[in-house]
């Protein structure tokens, strides 16, 4: 997996970006979520990974003994996941309400606010 992960991350990034570049609301949000996975995995992987050794101090011990996974990136990724969830939830609902009010299912139609009016 250590060797597979970079490719997995790359694949997720590519897929996410490709989705985000579509015209569809739903694909946009799915793409963002996948990009979220990709960046979480990247943060996780790039901080170096250790297989099968969670950072849990065993009963009776005072400290962890090597090998153990770096707990810090885990904490960071956890925070990032949660934050991502909050923001994605908002984005999902935004898109729903946006769809209801803007009344289009094509993102390309959302170009009124920043075009020059002449």
């Amino acid at each position, binding site marked *: 997996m250590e060797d597979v992960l970079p490719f997995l991350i790359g694949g997720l990034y590519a897929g996410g970006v490709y989705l985000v570049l579509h015209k569809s609301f739903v694909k946009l949000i799915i793409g963002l979520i996948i990009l979220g996975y990709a960046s979480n995995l990247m943060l996780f992987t790039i901080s170096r990974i250790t297989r*099968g*050794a*969670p950072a*849990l101090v065993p009963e009776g011990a005072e400290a962890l003994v090597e090998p153990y996974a770096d707990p810090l990136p885990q904490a960071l990724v956890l925070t990032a996941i949660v934050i991502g969830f909050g923001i994605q939830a908002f984005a999902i609902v935004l898109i729903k309400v946006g769809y209801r009010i803007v009344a289009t299912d094509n993102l390309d139609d959302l170009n009124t606010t920043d075009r020059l009016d002449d």
Partner: protein
Amino acid sequence: MSWYYMVLLFALIVLSFSAVLVFIRIIVGPSLPDRVIAFDLIGTITIGMIALYSLITGLTSYLDAAIILSLILFLGAVAFAYYMKKSHKAKK
């Protein structure tokens, strides 16, 4: 590498191939309920895989993730059912 370890590894591989099979059903469909059920099954298989992995590593703390999955999987199915009901009504 004890024989037990080999068995576990083998079991894990079998499970991952099962996941691939079920995955095919998600892709093929054809109906939404088919996919939902297949999705549910993938979740179940994941529970099994997590359990096996905790056996392989000897770390029981992974089982907590499996517990959570076993509790929460069902929510997905219920939500999809809700979706079908709503969209069915909307179609009418």
